[in-house]
């Protein structure tokens, strides 16, 4: 399937569409450049594996390395807790996203606004609409998705990828970060 069509065929995006993360270093550069990143993790991540390891481990590693606070929605929290990882907040996707559109909001810690929000694992059409909300109404926040499908409403997204390519890419992102 074309790399930059919406994963759901009919979710045709408007004129403004996500740039592609083709190589890990693009994502790494974007993450490093961000002053205040945040990661929002939906329940969809539970079923995915990155080269034999559950995706969640990869996200935890990323969060630790890049010091990115993680917001989990309801059903994902336990998975994190069971791995000894304490998410920064348990919050629904619409709640955290709505806060991100408020330029006055100083973040979970009350310090400063976020400038990068990484989304992964929400149901496709829910993530599509939420990213649309941010695209239009959170001009100060860039968004990135880590799903293996194209999310046109993000600022940066993976293309529609095979699981293998995607996993390699994600792994690369985490590994390179240390450099």
């Amino acid at each position, binding site marked *: *399937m074309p790399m930059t069509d919406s*994963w*759901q*065929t*009919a979710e*045709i*995006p*408007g*004129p*403004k569409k996500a740039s592609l993360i083709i190589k890990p270093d693009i994502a790494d550069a974007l993450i490093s450049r961000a002053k205040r990143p945040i990661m929002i993790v*939906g*329940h969809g991540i539970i079923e995915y594996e990155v080269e034999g390891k559950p995706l969640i481990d990869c996200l935890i590693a990323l969060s630790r390395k890049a010091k990115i606070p993680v917001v989990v*929605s*309801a*059903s994902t*929290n*336990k998975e994190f*807790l069971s791995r000894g990882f304490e998410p920064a*907040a*348990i919050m*629904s*996707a*619409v*709640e955290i*996203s*709505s*806060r991100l*559109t*408020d330029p006055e*909001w100083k973040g979970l810690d009350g310090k400063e606004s976020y400038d990068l929000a990484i989304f992964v694992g*929400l*149901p*496709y*059409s*829910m993530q599509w*609409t*939420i990213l*649309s*909300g941010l*695209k*239009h*109404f959170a*001009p100060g926040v860039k968004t990135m998705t880590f799903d293996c499908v194209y999310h046109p409403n993000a600022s940066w997204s993976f293309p529609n990828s095979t699981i293998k390519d995607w996993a390699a890419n994600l792994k690369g992102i985490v590994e390179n970060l240390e450099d």
Partner: protein
Amino acid sequence: MSRKSVNFTIKEINSDLAQFRDLNITIGSITRERWEEPMGPTPYPSLTTLRSWDQRLLSRYKPFYMPFCDLCCLCTYGKCDLTGTKKGACGISMPAQQSRTVLIAACIGAATHISHSRDLLNHVIATSGRDCPINVGGTSVEVEAPITRLVCGVKPETLGDLEPVLDYCENQLTQLLAVTHTGQEGNHLDFESKVFHAGMIDHVGMEVADIAQVSALGFPKADPEAPLCDLGLGTVDTKKPVILVIGHNVPPATAIIDHLKETGLFPEVEVTGICCTALDVTRYSPRAKIVGPISWQLRYIRSGVPDVIVIDEQCVRTDTLTEAARIHAPLIATSEKNCLGLPDMTDETVDAIVAGFVSGKVTGALILDPEKVGEVAVATAMAVAPKRKKHSVLPTKHQLGEWAKKCTQCMLCRRACPNDLPIAQAIRLAASGNLSGLDELYDDCLGCGRCESACKQKIPIHSLIVAAADKKTREETYCLRSGRGAIQDLEIRKVGGPIVLGEIPGIVAFVGCANYPKGSREVAEMCMEFARRRYIVCTSGCSAMSAGMYRDEEGKTAYERYSGAFEAGGIVNVGSCVANSHIAGAAIKIASIFAKRPLRGNYEEIADYVYNRVGAVGVAWGAMSQKAASIAAGFWRLGIPVVVGPHGTKYRRMLLGRADKDADWFVYDARTGEKVYGGPVPEHLFFAAETKEEAMVMVAKLTMRPNDTSRGRANKLANYIDLHKRLVGGIPQDVYRLVRTHADIPLTMKDECLLHLSGHDWKESPIPDPTLLPRMVHQKRGD
């Protein structure tokens, strides 16, 4: 009663009593005034009458817009790109465009109910007379039409009294739709206020429809023990001729039942239904059978079981004619609103129509006379059933495998599936003879058929799924308590105190359509969980069916396990979609009957009461339609939050509160007039949950109200914390915002709560007598 003035001239009257010439009577307004309650401030509100109330709500629950499209395509200046801060050729901006789109949807939804209500009312007036008294619960229900009384300030006594109420609805609907015209309203909050208005008149329309049909058609009258009836594909006796009714407007279906009874054929024929007509026909005769919600339409028709299909209006797949033709079942369309291009045979004889059907020359007909529909449907079913032999179009196991082998694994099916189901994977398995993948899909499949349209190999994917799950379909033998209609005044009196005080932790209503993210079962599970926790659980529409489509460990469905009374731990099926009005009505009646707030034309005060005191929450887990949009809006204006599933983000905006902003949560203390912090309750007005777990925890939280007594708050918190611990893990991070005094802390959770509170710089705060209306200060009634 009528809002219109009447002026008429009678040239001459001759009677035994007197003789008049040129009598000219002018009557400013005819009202049959038997209602002693004085008129409130806002009878028959117009577009802006309740704007300031809406503004109060909307300043707390600011819309978070999620444009479903970056464009506007409403006029020929367009399409206009509205990305970010761009404006359309008419000057509109994205927030206004999104809310305008919501208003169009809400208008479509409200129009649908109101026009249905009008059709139904015309029908029952034609059959029962304009003077037929309204009777929704005999002496058990004094407040027969709480929404109509509240909104319109009138007290309908007969069917005829309902007509001017619908006049009002139609008038307001027209006004509201006009607002969406290019180059008119420009402010998103004004659009949202108008969405609320559409929701409110939608509720009026729904109430009129249901009280009309309950009164005239002898449906259960506020009966907590309404009969149980069969539910599920497996309950249909496929050896008999089978009639299928689909839609929302019950008269053709009741005419079928009547005709079967008159002819003595009822025992020989199965009357089965899908969607709300199914719910309402079981209110008419519990021997009718409900097949399932909207998502069952394709699978049931393709099974070949129905011999005749009778459709009316709303929630009827638009391709029913094609699907019916595939199984050689004649189709009868019965509504002016849904003609499907069929020849109008209303004026032909029953025999001629039946003969056309039987010969196969006619595959479908439009018949706009319910009684004739009854006769034609029965005669046709009897005649075609032996010929059709339940002609099915589902593939055999062998055919299924052959189809599966054609799959190229192109993924277009999955990319077309609203639930992103792993179809291609399942088909690959099936090609190797293993049907388990397809069988698993059955549970989550919405029956929308989009995968089939997308498949370039023309594989009838949905049919494959249904065929693979044939064992499951045969085992779909559930039951449902038929729609009881209104809540009795006595029930309200009994639960009013416990609800307002919080001893009953809340009313949770599972309503609306079947666009579920993971199939029907989650609705049943949620219902049972909340009933077990002694909430009052209400159901209606497709959700009422889903609620019954699951058996617990003991093999019982929710309706068998729990009572049908409006009481703690009851599961109360009110009826079809229009019966949703009884859920709103119950909230209103708590304010009116239990709390004795004046009801008549007194919208703001009652809404203020409900919002601050009645812990009701709506859950529309599969909300799909424009009607769901307007129904939800009607609840919002009353201050009742609504939770939807993940697809609900496609409604284009949420109404979310900001618990972290203390300034947002001030209320007036009615005793003192002071502005005091009331806490972030209910936190949201419209919320899309990602998963069932998230929904349940949120529902428990949203039942909280500023007015909760400590005992009540402790009860609600206990449920909230417990659900959170079980489903999410750990104590919720916001308990400190919800505990006002030490007495609020649930006893059994004291230690962990105190630990939590100590981490949050928590201080006790007083419990106000909350109101959002300055004029309610010092005006408490009944003091």
